[in-house]
């Protein structure tokens, strides 16, 4: 048998059922690997030596009862939550245990993992590259086989982009699919928790576990997500695939473009009907996003007063400060109409673009990111340049629709992710597309040599 840690979640569950190994052996295998690799990669901020349960890595912005949860910030460096986030409770009910809390950009603000107060996580494919962000540690943990699966959070691409950079599967569900109760809030009209896994099948299973209403997040749909495996197997013959021309313009690395074009050809071979579409307001999405996010951030971050928990506001890191400042400015007296209200109107237009597109096509497919993983330190002094790398992912958050990133090839030894966007509440179709692609290509089986 292969190394236990190389198994997907679905394979692990069936191996446990067949008694090929015990839960204790499973946990030990992962713990040994974490011991060997974590000092080099800086993925985990906290590791739990469990003997039971299926080990999952949890982004440290999701609170875990009695397990230190820092949001990768000095201001919460001593915070021990008194209760579990809803998603944690749901995982525990399904036989999962928390093997560790993963590093990420402070308060989930960043696109490279470099904004953590506890040092940068390395990309397992190349230690001189960023793993992507903000769910940097969760992506690297899945990639390096340090957990069976992970949870991340996605406000503008924070699940999909690091999944793309690390060559794993990551899903941002529809806004309202998964309860955010116990997710440390960043931008509340955009935040969503989602699975980061070794296969599309695993993502479908984890979404099934964590979705559904809990009475604590009023935006969650009472309808529970359940994907039938027969549906995943249905294939994509006759499925209409829209390719937005705006996602193939200036800024897209030609080497990434080539890999994406090959993936589109593969989808065509599998029976998909690929057609060009237009999302005309895409070019304004980023500007709208960088008003809406900092505004909501400045409001959410106001709760950190060091009275009930946490430390003083002098412990807030540079990027978080920058966003609080920008948001406070845009919400301040006299500017609200010019900034937040204007951005919210542009948001309507971005949303309408997708609604129009989905009248003609079933899914929208393109790159996750304009480039592969860049060098550590390359963009840290230029926030705008860093923000521009989110250009293809933020629209899904503005529109509230689901987006999947799947491995679709390599450029100069670094993974490239294919983004599959779906209609609101229609994770099933994007997972079906991802599954069909995965069965036909096996890119998800590629692992870094560690």
């Amino acid at each position: 048998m292969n190394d236990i840690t190389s198994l997907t979640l679905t394979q692990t569950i069936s191996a446990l059922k067949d008694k090929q190994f015990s839960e204790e052996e499973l946990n030990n295998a992962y713990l040994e690997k974490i011991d060997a690799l974590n000092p080099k990669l800086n993925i985990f901020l906290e590791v739990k030596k469990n003997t039971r349960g299926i080990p999952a890595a949890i982004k440290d912005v999701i609170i875990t009862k009695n397990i230190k949860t820092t949001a990768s910030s000095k201001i919460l460096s001593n915070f021990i939550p008194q209760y579990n986030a809803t998603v944690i409770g749901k995982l525990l009910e399904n036989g999962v245990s928390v093997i560790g809390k993963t590093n990420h950009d402070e308060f989930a603000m960043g696109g490279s993992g470099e904004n953590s107060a506890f040092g940068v996580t390395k990309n397992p494919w190349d230690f001189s590259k960023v793993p992507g962000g903000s769910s940097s540690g969760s992506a690297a943990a899945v990639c390096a086989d340090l957990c069976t699966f992970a949870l991340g959070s996605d406000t503008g691409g924070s699940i999909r982009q690091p999944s793309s950079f690390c060559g794993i599967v990551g899903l941002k569900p529809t806004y309202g699919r998964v309860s955010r109760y116990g997710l440390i809030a960043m931008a509340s009209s955009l935040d969503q928790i989602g699975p980061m896994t070794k296969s599309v099948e695993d993502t479908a299973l984890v979404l099934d576990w964590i979705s559904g209403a809990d009475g604590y997040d009023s935006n969650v749909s009472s309808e529970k997500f359940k994907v039938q495996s027969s549906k995943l197997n249905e294939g994509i013959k006759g499925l209409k695939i829209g390719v937005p021309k705006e996602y193939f313009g200036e800024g897209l690395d030609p080497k990434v473009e080539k890999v994406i074009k090959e993936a589109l050809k593969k989808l065509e071979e599998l029976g998909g009907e690929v057609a060009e579409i237009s999302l005309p307001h895409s070019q304004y999405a980023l500007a709208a996003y960088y008003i809406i996010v900092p505004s909501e951030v400045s409001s959410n971050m106001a709760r950190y007063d060091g009275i009930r928990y946490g430390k003083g506001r002098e412990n807030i890191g540079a990027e978080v400060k920058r966003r609080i400042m920008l948001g406070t400015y845009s919400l301040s007296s006299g500017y609200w109409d010019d900034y937040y209200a204007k951005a919210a109107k542009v948001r309507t237009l971005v949303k309408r673009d997708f609604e129009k597109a989905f009248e003609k096509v079933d899914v929208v497919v393109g790159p996750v990111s304009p480039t592969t993983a860049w060098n550590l330190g390359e963009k840290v002094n230029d926030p705008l340049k860093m923000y521009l790398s989110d250009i293809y992912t933020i629209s899904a958050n503005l529109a509230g629709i689901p987006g999947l990133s799947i491995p679709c090839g390599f450029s100069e030894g670094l993974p490239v992710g294919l983004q599959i966007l779906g209609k609101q509440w229609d994770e099933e179709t994007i997972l079906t597309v991802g599954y069909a692609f995965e069965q036909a290509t096996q890119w998800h089986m590629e692992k870094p040599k560690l």
Partner: protein
Amino acid sequence: MKLTKDQVKHVAKLANLPVTEEEEEKYSEQLSKILDYIDQLNQVDTSDVEPTFNVSGQTNVQSEDKLGVCLPQDDALSNAPKKENGFFVTKGVFDNE
């Protein structure tokens, strides 16, 4: 759009953020650059467009008015840097306290 150092200082005060002089300089430059980028929103005609603040489609979600389980007092206080007689200790609200 240029954000001056004075404006940065004012915004930092509104946000209750300690900011050094060096940071004032840095944020003035960086935020001005970001605001310049954001200015392109003015190219979009939104005169007949309603704003979107929520995308879940849920409205007036209510819960039953009944008591549920809540954190015991000791648990609620377990992360407090300062507590006294089962209460959080806060800074005084008035100048002389």
